[in-house]
């Protein structure tokens, strides 16, 4: 009869002050996450190498108009004689880098503001939280639409609008996490040792909040892509003749029976977003013990 062993995560006071997160691999989410990573990687490569792989110039209007796929083109041509396939590939180089940029910046701004709010508390906390309340009082797309329209329709303004709308969730999350950690032993002892606020934040708190933030960010990339392409669909993002997936679908509405015009850009969005969402799901299962399926157990009544 062996004694059931109990492991505890020891915090080594001499080394980096963080708990190594326990990694659990979900039975389904892990393989799906890997598949997602493969697809995402593929699309990232497409985004980088689009100019090299596209068979035609995405802006050139020299092919036959509104040709269905198969007659020499992979995905057909649009109403101005442009190759849809090349435009889809080119669209990746527009949407994916911008979405990644959007998420990175939202995380940075949100995490910094959230940390400040959580760490310093009082009126700083109140102020920042009221601002997040205000932004979150609108549904995301609506507010982004309003801001993008006010700033003037351009891809850059769309990204800016999306950024303004996206940072609050990170601020809220970070603030919550920081508040939770602020009273913990090693943070307090650090402060007693004379750590400045910045040092405390950087050394003690930051490594421990990375996990949940990372999970939220990875699930947010898909949202960012949907938001940016949605704004372009509304005409508030990429301007013609830029090949962007959302605006391509918008153009497709006019030429309804040319099904290939709308199908492929939308499929592109779908596959990229699904890929990143699977990655995010796998990360969440790996890092968050509660959301996972523990020991394959269920509940029979």
């Amino acid at each position, binding site marked *: 009869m062996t004694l059931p062993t109990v492991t505890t995560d020891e915090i080594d006071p001499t080394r980096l002050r963080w708990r190594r997160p326990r990694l659990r691999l979900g039975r389904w989410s892990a393989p799906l996450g890997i598949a997602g990573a493969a697809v995402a990687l593929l699309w990232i490569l497409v985004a980088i190498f689009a100019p090299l792989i596209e068979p035609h110039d995405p802006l050139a209007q020299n092919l036959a108009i509104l040709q269905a796929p198969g007659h020499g083109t992979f995905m057909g041509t649009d109403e101005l004689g442009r190759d849809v396939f090349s435009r889809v590939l080119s669209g990746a180089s527009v949407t994916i880098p911008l979405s990644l940029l959007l998420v990175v910046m939202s995380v940075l701004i949100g995490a910094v503001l959230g940390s400040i709010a959580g760490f310093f508390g009082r009126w700083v906390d109140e102020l920042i939280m*009221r601002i997040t309340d205000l932004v*979150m*009082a609108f549904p995301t797309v609506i507010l982004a639409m309003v801001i993008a329209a*006010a700033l003037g329709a351009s891809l850059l303004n769309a990204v800016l609008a999306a950024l303004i709308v996206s940072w609050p969730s990170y601020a*809220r999350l970070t603030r919550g996490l920081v508040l939770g950690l602020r009273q913990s032993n090693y943070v307090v002892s650090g402060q007693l040792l004379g750590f400045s606020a910045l040092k405390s934040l950087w050394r003690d708190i930051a490594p421990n909040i990375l996990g949940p933030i990372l999970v939220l960010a990875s699930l947010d990339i898909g949202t960012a892509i949907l938001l940016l392409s949605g704004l372009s*669909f509304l005409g508030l993002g990429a301007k013609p003749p830029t090949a962007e997936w959302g605006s391509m679908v918008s153009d497709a509405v006019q030429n309804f029976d040319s099904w290939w015009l709308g199908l492929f850009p*939308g499929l592109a969005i*779908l596959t990229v977003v699904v890929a990143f969402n699977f990655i995010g799901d796998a990360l969440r299962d790996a890092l968050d013990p509660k959301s996972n399926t523990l020991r394959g157990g269920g509940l029979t009544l």
Partner: protein
Amino acid sequence: MTSNTAVRTVPEEKSTGTVRAAHPFVRYAVRRVITSILLVIGVTLVTFVLTNLVPGDPVAAALGQRAAEDPTIVAHFRAEYGLDKPLVVQYFTYLGNLLHGNLGVSTTTHNEVSADLAQALPATLEIAIGAIVLSVIIGVVLGTVAAYRRGKVSDHVLRVVSLAGLSVPTFWLALVLYYVFYFKLHIAPGSGRLDSDFNAPHTVTGLYTVDALLAGQLDTFFDALSHLFLPVLVLTLYTVGLLTRFVRTAVLEILDQDYVRAARAKGLPTRTVIWSYVLRGASIPVLTVVGLAFGSLLSGTVLVESIFSWPGIGSYAYQAASHLDLPGIMGVGLLIGVMYLLVNLIVDLLYGILDPRVRIA
């Protein structure tokens, strides 16, 4: 498609000292209403700032290029909106206008924005209500099933499917479904709320289905219903994924609670445990998600309505956005913002009814 991960927790009872009522629920309700009013003011502030922050001349932005070239119109505009006065005064003029229902004039339709919106709103409400009711029913059922079968194949399948559902671009889904069901299969009717040979029923609620029933016009009722099919389907598919995931998480947490185990230990039949204990416990977090889903739904209408030529505020927003009709866009933004706040207020008030810890000291 929302990054609004504002998870609501039942607010703590803070001793305000200012509002004293015999009933703690009244105190709670009043506090929530005051917060909502403050948020509405904040929302108007946001739209005001955005209108005036437009790079370039706000006059041109509000009136459109051509009108801005006419000095009389410009002067009148400046006077009416007090553009020569300090910003604070301008804000109060703006607020005053809002309270009178004056949202400006659309640069595309050339109607009063408030009139346009009033006409468009019922159409959106018709599909929004249909979609939210369907999504909640399906989402709660699927989410609960997934939670109960946690770890088994059906749970995983549901999780993957709902994740895929969350990943679909709504506007594309609308297009694809419209093409398949209307264009190719001829199952669904074409665009708009009614076929061309039908007239709209006498307006009582603005919801064609309800009004047709009230007027006893069954043919119109069925036609309106069939036109609802596709838009509601798209919006439902869009929201169901979100709801299933959240309900699953909420129910999982409830299943871990001691009171569920205690209920089983009492020998209560499974049906009773699920209905009276589990779902009641999950009702509050699920309600939170429904509030969030509604916001997501409103966003969805903007992306979807135009494809079905559905004359709601979504189409209006789409039109306003693509023509850079600022009064129109601001009007829609304000309306949807207020609607969302109202829904969340109702959700918060329902907490008070559902959770005795809130309504009884």
